[in-house]
C-alpha cells in the first residue's frame, strides 16, 4: 500500500484545519448559534389537525399568545402543526391555545400530540452544565491518555478534539441548525468516538517505535497511519452507515441526535488521521531540533 503522507505534508493538513477552524469561529462570532428552547426557554406545541391548514388561520390563533411564534407543518400529510414560541407559555396560556385550535378544527384531547415547555432559567443551567460536562470529559481523557501513553500524546489528542468541537459548532452555526440538549450528548459522544480513533493511531505509533530509529519520527508516524487508516475509515463508515439510516428514517427526536453525530464522526475521523499524529510529529521534531541545536552550541 502506498504510504500516507501525514507527517510529511503536515503543513497542508494544518492549513486545511486552520481554514476550517477560522471559518467556524468566524461564523460563531458573526451569527452565533441558533439555540432551541432547551437553552433559551420557550414552548413547543404539536397538534394533529386531521386536515391541511392555512398558516394564516393558525397564526390568527397563535398571535394572541406570542406574535413571534414559529408555525411549521409536520406529519406525512402535513396535517400536523408545530408551534414554537420564544416565551414559555404557562398552563392557562397553553390551554387557551389548544382550545383555540380545538374549536376551529374540532379536535379531541388526544390530538394534542406533544408539549415541550422550558423556562429560561433551566436553559441557562443546561448551558453551563454542558460546558462543565465537556471540560470534565476532556480532562479525564487527557489524564487517561497521559497515564497509558504519554503527556504529549494526550495534549495533541485534546487539541484535535477542540478542533472537532469548533468545526461541528461551526457547521451548526453556518447552517443555523437548532441546538438543543441532544446536541450536547452527541458532542460528548463525538469526543469519545474521535479520541477512540486517535488512540488507535497513537497505539500503533507506540508499538512501532522500537522498530524505527530513535528520531525517525516522520517514518514512524507515516507508517503507523498507513497501517491503521483502513481500519479508521472502515469503522467510521460502519458507524456513519448506521447513524445515517437513523437520520434518514428516524423521527425528529432521533434526528436531533443523529445529525451532530454524523457531522462529528466525519470531522473526528479526519482529525484523528490527519491532525493528531501530524501534530505529535511536528512537536517531536521541533523538540528534537532544539535539542540538536543546544548540543551544537
Amino acid at each position: 500500500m502506498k504510504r500516507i503522507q501525514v507527517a510529511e505534508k503536515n503543513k497542508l493538513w494544518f492549513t486545511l484545519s486552520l481554514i476550517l477552524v477560522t471559518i467556524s469561529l468566524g461564523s460563531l462570532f458573526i451569527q452565533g448559534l441558533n439555540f432551541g428552547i432547551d437553552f433559551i426557554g420557550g414552548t413547543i406545541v404539536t397538534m394533529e389537525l386531521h386536515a391541511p391548514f392555512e398558516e394564516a388561520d393558525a397564526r390568527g390563533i397563535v398571535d394572541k399568545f406570542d406574535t413571534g411564534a414559529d408555525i411549521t407543518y409536520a406529519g406525512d400529510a402535513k396535517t400536523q402543526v408545530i408551534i414554537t414560541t420564544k416565551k414559555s407559555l404557562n398552563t392557562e396560556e397553553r390551554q387557551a391555545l389548544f382550545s383555540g385550535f380545538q374549536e376551529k378544527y374540532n379536535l379531541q384531547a388526544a390530538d394534542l400530540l406533544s408539549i415541550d415547555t422550558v423556562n429560561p432559567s433551566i436553559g441557562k443551567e443546561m448551558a453551563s452544565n454542558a460546558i462543565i460536562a465537556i471540560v470534565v470529559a476532556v480532562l479525564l481523557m487527557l489524564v487517561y491518555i497521559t497515564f497509558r501513553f504519554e503527556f504529549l500524546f494526550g495534549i495533541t489528542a485534546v487539541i484535535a478534539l477542540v478542533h472537532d468541537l469548533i468545526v461541528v459548532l461551526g457547521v451548526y452555526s453556518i447552517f443555523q441548525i437548532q441546538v438543543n440538549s441532544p446536541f450536547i450528548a452527541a458532542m460528548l459522544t463525538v469526543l469519545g468516538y474521535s479520541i477512540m480513533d486517535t488512540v488507535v493511531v497513537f497505539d500503533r505509533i507506540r508499538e512501532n517505535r522500537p522498530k524505527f530509529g530513535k528520531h525517525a519520527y516522520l517514518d514512524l508516524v507515516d507508517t503507523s497511519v498507513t497501517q491503521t487508516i483502513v481500519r479508521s475509515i472502515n469503522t467510521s463508515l460502519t458507524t456513519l452507515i448506521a447513524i445515517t439510516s437513523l437520520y434518514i428514517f428516524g423521527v425528529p427526536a432521533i434526528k436531533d441526535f443523529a445529525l451532530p453525530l454524523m457531522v462529528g464522526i466525519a470531522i473526528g475521523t479526519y482529525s484523528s488521521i490527519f491532525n493528531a499524529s501530524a501534530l505529535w510529529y511536528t512537536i517531536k521534531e521541533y523538540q528534537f531540533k532544539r535539542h540538536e541545536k543546544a548540543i551544537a552550541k
Partner: protein
Amino acid sequence: MDKKNIHRKSVIKLIAITLSIALVGYILFYGITVGVYNIGNIGKSINYGLDLTGGVNVVLEAQSTDADPVTSEKIDSSILTIRQRIDSIGVSEPTITKQGDNRIRVSIPSVSDQEEALNLIGKTAQLEFLGPDDSVILTGKDVIDSKGVMQTDNSGVEKAVVTLKFSEEGTKLFADATQKYQGQIIKIKLDDEVISSPTVNVVITSGEAVIEGMKDIDEAGNLASLIRGGALPVKLEPVEIRTIGPTLGQNSLSESIFAGIIGISLVLIFMLVVYRGLGFLADLALLIYIIIVLTIMTALNVTLTLPGIAGLILTVGMAVDANVIIFSRIQEEARSGKSLLTSIDVGFARAFGTILDSNVTTLIAGFVLFFLGSGSVQGFAVTLILGILVSMFTAIVITKRLIKILVKTGLFNNNAFYGL
C-alpha cells in the same frame, strides 16, 4: 479444496452456533409459550420510556420566599401529596423523584389527557373558606373527606358538586362561622381564585358542605381528589414540561425500529462485502451482541428511550469497530507469513490493548454524560455504556471462538475467503 481436511466436529459446532443464534433471536423477538410460561418477546417485556409510550414529564421548582423558605421536609411532603393525587386518578406507576435541593421531577406514563394531568400535578390546592371580611374561617386541612358527585338542586336540575366533610374541629369552626355570617356571603378560594361564593342560609352543624359551580363530574372529581390529597406545602412552578401523546409515542417507536433495522442490515452487508468470511463471523458476533444487549436491558429493567435507541445503533457501529481492529491485525500477521491460526492468536493479543484503550475513552464520555446529564441524555448514556462493555466482550471473547471454529472446520482454506 481437500475434502479429507474437513473437521466434522467444528463444522457441526459452527452450524449449531448459527442455528442457536437464530433460535435465541426468534424467541427474543417473537416469544414462545412453554406451558404457562411466556418466554422472551422483548418487545413486550422491555421497559419503554415516556417518549415511546406517551406520557407526561414535568420538573417542578419550589418557589422560595423569605417568609416561607423551601426545606427538604416540604419537598418530601410535596412528593407524597403529588403521588396521592396521581394515584387518585388511577394512572399507571408514576415516577416522582427529587432533583437537587428544590426541584421535583414527575413522570407519568400513558396519559391520555396531557393538560389535565399537568393541572393535577402543579396545583397548590390551597383551599380556604373566607368570611365577608376576608378572615380565614377554615382551610383544606380541616377537610377529612371530599367527593365529586351529581346532586339535584332545589330547581330539580342535576349538577356536579364537590362534597366536603370537615374534621371535628372544622365542624365547630364552620358552625360558628355560619352562625356569625348568616345571610352573608362566604367565599371558597382555591389557590387565590374564588371558585364559589355561596350565601349562608342556615347554620350548618353537620360538618358537611358542598362546592357548586363545577363544569362537569370530571372537574368535580378532580377538585375533590385535590382537596383529599391536601394542599402542597410550597408553591411549585413547572420549569420544564415534556409531554407526548400516546399515538406519537407509538409512531416514534415503530419508525425508530424500522430505521434501526435498516441501519444494522446495512452494517451487516458492509462487513460481509469488505471482510468476506471474517465479515460473516463479525456479523454473527454482531447479532450475538444485539441479543446480549437487549437481554441485559430487559433484565436490569433499563428504560429504553428514543435517545437510547440512537445510542444502541451507535454502539452497533462501535461493536463492529472492535472486530475491524482484530481482523486488520490478523490480516497483517498473516501477510507477514504466519499460519492462519497463529495469526489469529497474535492478532487478538495485539488488538486487545488497542480495543481496551480506545473504548475506555468513550466510556469516560458515557459516564460523564450519565452523571452530569439529565433526562433524555441519561437514557442515551446508559445504552452507550452498556453497549461499549458488551461490544468489548463479544469482540474479544465471542469473535475469537467463532474464528477458531471456522478455521478448524477446514471448509475454507483459501486466503481470499478471509479477505487476505
